[in-house]
């Protein structure tokens, strides 16, 4: 525990991804001030991509130097590395698909990329946090950048509404989290996850208070992962935010929040599992059901994907409820797969929506398969994956989750969850229907897909299919890293 005057090299290496992201973000912010011409925009987006690539490498370095850092505040283990890579990959996809989008919307400024980098730094921190203060800091860094990203198009009314809503509700939820942290500290005298755990095991003045504190923290997490009954913001935000940002929000911060939530509840609060398990059980079921049934009525694709992301959070919650290693591995696999397929779907929405995002209703997708067969085919892959049809990543995600649930004897939750996924098929199918079974209404010239967006689409589609045939590529890592040090 003794702190040195200078941090040790190993500690710095364990913190490398965050260092790279923060440095790059700061440098780009300064550079942005000096370069105002159009060319430097693409330079900045390229440098951002390089920075994220470097951070990925930094993650590998951190993984090779496992252990604690900075007075046990951070932990660099396989679990952290897995989630760092997931959020960085999502970030990379965001950067790739954003530059053309921002150009189209005439808001291509460097701040966007800087915000993405800072948000990623926060998410990486969350993945590696071993301490409630770090959890909070990571969450705030990630969230504040996300709030701004959601309202990045300043002149867009819906974007502003989305950002404001996200900000107000988000701050409110974070306050709950912080309040919970304070209670935990009061009860156990520590904010370190491992110490909290041992304090609870040794005995605390009031188990009820600890449970209540865990409950308060759960409120904060539930908001971030859009779990019922704190899911209300998600559809509004995803609908109003710029499409590439919606994709980012639905995949990156959510994965990081799940990472933290799983770590906190499985290390610090493991002793009170019987108390939180029924709560999570109910929450999982509610989240799936509300998300899926609400999505049935949506005509706006972004809004529908918003509700669908609530439903998918419900599936992951099933895995969290199992509080087993297989469950954790399933959640990890699912979040990675979900990141790919959902980002892919949003990338296609980004393209189809057109200038000003005016074409985002189901009717606008009419006859897409004839206007742009490749785009329609890729969206089909993503939607089938979201439904959970075999030979796609989404299928194995669901499969591992429900297998873990069965292993933990949650037969009813499994049955209800699977029936839920049958309901979900309906609204995804509606998109397939309009794409393939209706004639196109416009004869408008098809706009070409910008390079970065094209790469995003193809990479996510290919990865969705590859993971659907060889899930072991990711699952093996997830299984290996799902064991949390306690």
């Amino acid at each position: 525990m003794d702190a040195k005057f200078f941090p040790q090299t190993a500690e710095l290496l364990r913190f490398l991804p965050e260092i790279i992201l923060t440095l790059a973000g700061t440098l780009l912010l300064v550079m942005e001030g000096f370069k105002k011409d159009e060319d430097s925009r693409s330079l900045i987006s390229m440098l951002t991509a390089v920075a994220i690539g470097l951070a990925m490498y930094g993650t590998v370095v951190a993984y090779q130097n496992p252990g604690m850092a900075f007075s046990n505040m951070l932990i660099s283990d396989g679990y952290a590395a897995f989630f760092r890579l997931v959020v960085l990959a999502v970030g990379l996809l965001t950067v790739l698909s954003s530059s053309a989008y921002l150009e189209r919307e005439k808001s291509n400024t460097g701040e966007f990329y800087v915000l993405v980098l800072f948000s990623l730094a926060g998410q990486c921190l969350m993945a590696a946090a071993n301490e409630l203060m770090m959890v909070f800091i990571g969450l705030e860094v990630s969230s504040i950048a996300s709030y701004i990203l959601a309202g990045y198009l300043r002149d867009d009314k819906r974007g502003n509404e989305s950002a404001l809503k996200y900000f107000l509700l988000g701050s409110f939820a974070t306050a709950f989290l912080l309040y919970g942290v304070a209670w935990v500290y009061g009860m156990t005298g520590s904010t370190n996850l491992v110490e909290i755990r041992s304090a609870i095991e040794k005995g605390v003045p009031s188990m009820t208070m600890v449970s209540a504190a865990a409950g308060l923290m759960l409120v904060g997490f539930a908001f971030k992962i859009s779990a019922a009954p704190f899911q209300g913001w998600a559809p509004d935000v995803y609908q109003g935010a710029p499409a590439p940002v919606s994709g980012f929000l639905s995949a990156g911060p959510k994965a990081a929040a799940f990472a933290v939530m799983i770590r906190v509840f499985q290390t610090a609060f493991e002793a009170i599992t019987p108390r939180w398990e029924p709560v999570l059980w109910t929450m999982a079921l509610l989240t799936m059901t509300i998300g899926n049934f609400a999505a049935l009525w949506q005509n706006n694709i972004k809004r529908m994907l918003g509700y669908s992301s609530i439903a998918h959070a419900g599936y992951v919650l099933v895995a969290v409820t199992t509080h087993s290693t297989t469950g954790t591995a399933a959640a990890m696999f699912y979040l990675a797969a979900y990141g790919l397929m959902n980002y892919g779907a949003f990338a296609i929405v980004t393209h189809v929506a057109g200038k000003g995002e005016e074409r985002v209703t189901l009717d606008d997708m009419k006859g897409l398969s004839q206007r742009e067969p490749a785009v329609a085919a890729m969206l089909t892959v993503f939607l089938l994956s979201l439904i959970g049809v075999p030979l796609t990543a989404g299928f194995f995600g669901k499969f591992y989750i429900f297998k873990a649930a069965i292993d933990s004897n949650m037969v009813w939750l499994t049955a209800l969850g699977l029936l839920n996924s049958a309901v979900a098929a309906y609204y995804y199918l509606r998109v397939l229907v309009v794409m393939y079974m209706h004639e196109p209404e416009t004869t408008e010239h098809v706009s070409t897909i910008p390079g970065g967006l094209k790469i995003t689409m193809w990479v996510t589609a290919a990865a969705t299919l590859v993971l659907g045939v060889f899930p072991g590529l990711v699952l093996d890592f997830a299984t290996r890293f799902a064991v949390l040090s306690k």
Partner: protein
Amino acid sequence: MNLLDILIAAPLLGFLITLALPKGNASLIKMFTLVFSLAVFAGSLLLVGPTLDRPGTMTWVTDAPWIATPAIRYHVGMDGVSLWLVLLSTFLTPISILLSWKYIDHRVKEFFAFLLLLEFGLAGVFVALDLFLFYVFWEVCLVPMYFLIGIWGHDRRIYAAVKFFIYTMAGSVLMLAAILYLYGKAGTFDYPAILLMMESGKLALSHTEEMLLFLAFFLAFAIKVPLFPLHTWLPDAHVEAPTAGSVMLAAVMLKMGTYGILRFCLPMFPNASKENANWIIVLAITGIIYGALVALVQPNMKKLVAYSSVSHLGFVVLGLFSGNQWGLDGAVYQMLAHGISTGALFMLVGFLYERQHSLEIKDYGGVSTPAPWLSTVFLVTTLASIGMPLLNNFIGEYLVLQGAAKVNIWWAVFAATGVILSACYMLWMYQRTFFGETPDEVKHHMHDLKGREWACILPLLALMVWMGIYAQSFLPSIGASNKTVLDRTQPTGAALIVALPATAEVANNGR
């Protein structure tokens, strides 16, 4: 990697190649898929010999690891029952392609590609020996059929396609839950391994567990069959589907359900199968009579044939749950026979539709005058469908009734009314369509069978006659496979009074 693996993979490869072909060149796409599927069919004929040598055991087995955790294996193999069902799929795919030659005029590439993807799924379903692999193929079949109905169907195609998808999906997710539960118990998805564990007592299911698992599997299969009262998706799907879709749906896809019952429900859950047999048989007989009665009043030909399928498939379920060799053999034979004759019926109705663009019986009349050959072929198929001796359906229906009578004579009595009713609705439709006054419309549009249409229908006619006259080509291998199922369901040997040769004899005497 053996011949079977190649034949499973080939349609998938064909699907990908078709997608890569140039979109504008429709004739190239059609030629390619036709030749490709014919080659697959020719290859599948090579499977017959070795499987017939040992029909009671699995041949052409490949067992390779696919996914490490959880242990999912690519485990396939075929016995006397799967052999014929695979052949049915590979046989009908080129015919369906030929059938759609002119009928499909827009988005040609996707259509023929989807037919090959469907073949891939179907072939896989009938040979998968790993529960997980089975589920994968089961679901894979869903996607191409959904598009076939939804894109190339008639007016209400979208409603029908979505209904089809959701119905099947709802059933199959419960099956997935059951598969996962079994995995939790057994630690493997490998079907033969699970059966072995059950036999040796290593895997013991409590009564409730067995009941629930049985029901979860059965529900998925019953929706697909479809068993009354879960049949409502079928008429919609059939009426709206393009001809080739109807043919594949009726001839092969419905058999996925009955095959699933035979392959998985009966051997894995023998006690639950026996306990539930009574109400299932009641539903099956209700379906036989109900389907026939509804068919009787249908003004739409395709709907009529669709309801006749509900009735015919009721026979199959009745046979499967009568629990003796006759019933089982009859059920499988009926599966194949129904595939051929109902496939042919849908095809012929499709021919009529292509000529006059109507499916309503009232729009036709006196067709036999302008199209004598079409009428003759239609008549033979009609007779086959109503169970005329010397044609295919008779053998299956007879064996099923025999098996049912063995258990409860009343079952046979009630089910037999379905045979009588089938004669009523089919012949009545035939009369209204082909005889009587010839309206000007019909005179104007109707012409006789052409070369391509002959090529589609002749192989089916030949099989109808072959299967009706010489059932011995098929029954021994089916019987040997079924015997292994019966050995599991009635280990005391009580059911073995009906040995294999006896079955064959029945078939011969029957005719």
